[in-house]
């Protein structure tokens, strides 16, 4: 998506941060926007996931619309 010019941001949990770096470099997109999440997120319950979402939402919006 990012290659096609579609604004994109990857949400990567702490445990997978180094893999995200590796893949981004391998694909020639080392600066692809990424946001670090705590680990785990999946399966931690709706309340926690909402908390995580609220915490990162501003950064997601900022990454998708820089300068907005």
């Amino acid at each position, binding site marked *: 998506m990012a290659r096609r010019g579609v604004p994109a941001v990857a949400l990567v949990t702490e445990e997978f941060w180094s*893999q995200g770096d*590796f893949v981004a470099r391998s694909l020639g997109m080392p600066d692809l926007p990424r946001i670090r999440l705590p680990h785990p997120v999946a399966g931690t319950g709706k309340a926690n996931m909402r908390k995580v979402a609220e915490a990162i939402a501003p950064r997601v919006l900022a990454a998708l619309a820089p300068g907005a």
Partner: protein
Amino acid sequence: MSKLLRAPDEAAALELLHEFECTDGLPVVIPTDERVQRMVLASGMDADLVLGAMGPAQGVATVEKVAVSAVMAGCLPDYMPVVMGAVKAVLHPAFDLAEMQGTTHCTAPLIIVNGPARQDCGPIAGGFGALGPGHRANAAIGRALRLAMINIGGARPGVSDMALLGHPGKFTYCLAEDEEHSPFAPLHTARGFALEDSVVTVVGAEAPHSVLHAIDADDPEDHLRLLEVLAIGLTNLATNNALIRNGAGVVVLNPDHAQVFADAGMDRQAVVEKLCELCRHSRADIETYGRSFMSWSKGDDWFPCFYDPEQILLLTAGGNGLYSMVMPTWCAGEHNNPAVSVALEVDQFCEIPGSDSAPA
């Protein structure tokens, strides 16, 4: 041309390769220029010929780079056609190699060899202990693919290979079908190849799971019970095949178990079709054990694990006795990580004088 490392002797070179994370943790044969060129020569192809980009690092897999892996793994030049075929198979876009290398699931490429290459490029074992130690070609060919996936594909545990635990088949995972003791036409003929072709089939697979079945010749429904236990093993409710679905599955029948089906009048196609019917779970079970994956699948009251009998690879291998093996698979990736088969271009390979001895 690959970058050359320099070391005062082979022991020091080995330590360098370990230090640079170029090994699987075990000692390797040092890929000297002479050994690598000899392996390239055996391929009959140009060293610089590009086979494809190998993910997740997107490293360029040239014949020379594959030859380096083959030398390190302890291959004889005779094995090169099978190694090349296996590399080509995993590089096929449908195989989803980059995603497979990066997944948290425990999956490794199982290499199944059919046709004359089993002898000409080996011998590659398909009988007793074919997936265990003691078979040089099986050990070295599977290891060569793994070393290519490490050094060309860039798979490093915890960084780019995120398998939570992995399994021992990630060191090497290669066998031949025992066509001579199988009552069925060989696997590769079911996948569209001619009987006389040599074919490598690669499928991302979990470790083999044993399936125990004591044959009872007095039971006219013995074959049905064998089908049922194979289905239970292959797609039990803890597997990706049950909860993610629509991926490949592997069934390795020992010759005795294969004969049970033949005696019941079933050929390969009949067995995989019946297995495909049996490998399913009720909506209630999926809701209980796989709620997170409900939206990934189709099904009303019953959820099929396979959407096509061809997704089940059935082959005959191993010694005679009570045990067959099943390998569930990952089932994810853009194409659900299907099996890929490649015919070996054996005419292009060169016989190297003295190649029946260890690499010089």
